[in-house]
């Protein structure tokens, strides 16, 4: 069972992990990544903008690609949008598999692709200043290694 959500509300990472494995006896590994807003260099808030109608579709496309590469029992991807503060959870990627290697790899694959393909844009607020974040070459390189 896969769940893909783009929402402004917070999520409960523990509950999402529980849900990924619940009621099944064939899952030996649940790997979860939670991204948190880092309050460095005086960051006061982040605003996340998305392309409604494309974001979930693009994430779903990469979940399907992950399913072709690894034997996956379930995936949950949650990405928050709107205004977030330092310390807030921003993204959750959870993968349930029979074995741990596939779960680790698929979770990393999905996280890399979220950064370089999902139509989401971060704007950083520092006091009165608001600046759109520039895409990083290192993120692009991380995604390219899965080719």
């Amino acid at each position, binding site marked *: 069972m896969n769940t893909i959500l783009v929402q402004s509300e917070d999520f409960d990472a523990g509950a999402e992990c529980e849900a990924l494995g619940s009621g099944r006896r064939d899952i030996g590994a649940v790997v979860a990544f939670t991204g948190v807003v880092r309050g460095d260099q005086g960051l006061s808030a982040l605003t996340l903008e*998305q*392309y409604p109608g*494309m974001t979930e579709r693009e994430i779903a496309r990469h979940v399907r690609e992950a399913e072709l590469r690894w034997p996956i029992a379930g995936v949950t991807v949650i990405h928050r949008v709107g205004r977030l503060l330092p310390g807030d959870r921003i*993204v959750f990627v959870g993968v349930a598999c029979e074995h741990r290697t596939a779960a680790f790899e698929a979770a990393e694959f999905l996280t890399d692709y979220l950064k370089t393909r999902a139509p*989401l*844009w*971060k704007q950083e607020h520092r006091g009165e200043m608001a600046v*759109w974040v520039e*895409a990083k070459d290192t993120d692009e390189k991380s995604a390219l290694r899965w080719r």
Partner: protein
Amino acid sequence: MTLLYFAWVRQSVGCSEENLPLPDNVRTIEELITYLRARGGPYEQVFGQPDRLRAALNREHVRFDANLHNEDEIAFFPPVTGG
């Protein structure tokens, strides 16, 4: 066709969405960029730097050589920064 703008592209152009008939001499995203740039003002600023832009056609990432049709939804935005 419907044009959508996101992030700083939306802010620079000054709107998030506009509808217009596909111009006669525009067959690809690249030609649409040239057409929009010729509008001048903020459009010249945004579409004069195509290296900073990415495009989606009907909600899928595409290259600038993608072909356009009158009923298409085309989005312009900077490289994505989610995750």
